[in-house]
């Protein structure tokens, strides 16, 4: 699992026992996941409102439609699973998200995992967020 994916899962999972987590968002899954991670990593200097919207838009423009759809599916499920399972930590959360995404798409876990990392989407999420934060 990539360091970025670990970070994202940890960022969301760590919050769960704390009060105030799990609020609902109207934005798409990618924005939603970015916002959750930004709130739980105050040292990242991300502005959840502006920077996450910027990152999602950047990714939507840059990635192919298929890849963005995959990334959104992954992001939405990850947040949903983290909210509903406050005791989940680290790798288990990521594995459960991959399994749910694979089932949703009718694909194997390895196919989904490869598409998320080797195919591009997950690899560019952190960069997009960083570019938006630093602009």
């Amino acid at each position, binding site marked *: 699992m990539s360091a970025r994916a670990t970070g994202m899962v940890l960022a969301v999972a760590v919050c769960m026992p704390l009060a105030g987590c799990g609020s609902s968002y109207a934005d798409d899954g990618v924005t939603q996941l970015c916002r959750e991670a930004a709130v739980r990593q105050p040292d990242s200097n991300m502005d959840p409102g502006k920077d996450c919207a910027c990152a999602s838009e950047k990714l939507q*423009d840059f990635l192919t439609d298929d890849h963005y759809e995959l990334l959104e599916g992954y992001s939405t499920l990850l947040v949903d699973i983290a909210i509903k399972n406050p005791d989940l930590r680290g790798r288990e959360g990521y594995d459960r998200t991959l399994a749910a995404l694979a089932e949703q798409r009718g694909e194997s876990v390895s196919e989904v995992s490869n598409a998320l990392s080797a195919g591009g989407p997950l690899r*560019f999420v952190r*960069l*997009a967020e960083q*570019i938006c934060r630093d602009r």
Partner: protein
Amino acid sequence: MTIPKTPARQIAAALVLLTSLTAQASDDLTIACVSELADKPVCECATNKLDSFLGKENFDKYQAFFAIFTVRHAQQIERDGDSLSAWNGAMSRYAKQAGEEPFDVMGWVPEFESVHRYALTACGAVVPDEGLEQSLLFFGEAR
């Protein structure tokens, strides 16, 4: 970026790449891409995508690195076909010129290069698999 196979193509590539340095900075990537892929629409598409994603400052940085790499790449190929040394040498040279820490340059250059590869693929280019290309650098191509 694929390595030209024949000496004539290598020299031609070197000349195009060296000539490209006199062009406006915004054309460096596209010109170098066209010299390798011979597909201007794809190369222009990829450069535009890259520019949009990275933003001006990061795009300019990558252009500046790429300009150094393409010259060094042509020289290394002329001399001994060593693309990996050209890449490493270019990162080192860029770091000195830009006043950046070499370790930092080694961080963002491969990352931007991955973005560049994705942009090329998304625009319709057939880009060699990174793992395969790295293996070929060490083991050589099949005879």
